């Protein structure tokens, strides 16, 4: 698959043109290409896979409605789609009941852990720690570590400089490592 301009593939450009010309069914190709990434992003950011899928549906629906406004000269299609996902997730998080960081951290420290703690328990605590991160740090971390987006793309989605993105990711990692220290996990 060849690439043009800002990273938009020829097939993607053709598919978008087809949709805009009235071939609505062609939009399914875009949905199928990006559904896993968008669902995973929303599910990890919101901490709930069912809500993540619902939000991902809204993302693709909004993308279809706004497709004519997508400008390939300004961004990749994936960047544009992730920007929509980011905004939808922020709105969803506002609706969701906010669980305070202290409440979750309290649960973490209250655990009486044995030396042979299972990975699943550590992962559960990391999940909790992820959900307690400030939204900006959490999004930057998820974009970089789970979605493997380059810093430049994350900066474009978030509307900040690359340095800010790096700093947010580092702070997020530091907090996640700190969450593991409670379990006497060996740090490097």
């Amino acid at each position, binding site marked *: 698959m060849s690439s043009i301009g800002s990273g938009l593939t020829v097939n993607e450009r053709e598919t978008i043109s087809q949709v805009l010309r009235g071939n*609505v069914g062609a939009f*399914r190709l875009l*949905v199928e290409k990006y559904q896993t990434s968008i*669902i995973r992003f929303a599910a990890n950011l919101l901490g709930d896979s069912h809500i993540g899928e619902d939000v991902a*549906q809204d993302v693709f*629906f909004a993308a279809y409605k706004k497709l004519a406004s997508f400008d390939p000269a300004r961004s990749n299609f994936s960047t544009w789609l992730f920007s929509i996902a980011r905004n939808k997730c922020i709105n969803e998080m506002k609706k969701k009941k906010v669980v305070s960081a202290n409440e979750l951290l309290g649960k973490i420290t209250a655990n009486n852990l044995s030396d042979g703690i299972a*990975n699943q328990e550590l*992962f559960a605590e990391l999940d909790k720690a992820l959900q307690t991160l400030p939204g900006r740090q959490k999004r930057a971390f998820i974009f970089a570590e789970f979605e493997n987006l380059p810093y430049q793309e994350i900066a474009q989605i978030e509307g900040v400089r690359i340095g800010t993105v790096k700093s947010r990711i580092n702070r997020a990692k530091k907090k*996640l490592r700190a969450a593991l220290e409670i379990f006497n996990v060996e740090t490097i």
Partner: protein
Amino acid sequence: MKTEEILKLWTDTKLQINPERDFSSKVMSRIYEYDRQRKKPLFDISRLVEIATSNPLTKAAMIIGGAAIGVLRIVFLLRTFLWC
């Protein structure tokens, strides 16, 4: 186990979220329904009202248009009286 190893394993588990099998079909059904609603006949009164009230510019244009017609009617009326 070291922190970085645990974080790596955890990240791997987070990548394992997969969509429902009919996810794309659900999205497409919603899109087809939206398009079906959008393609309703233009001269449907409820649709005209919906268009006029949803877009501030259309709303403003309708108000200005109404006011202009009113002024023209008054001018026409005055002109008719003055000619009599």
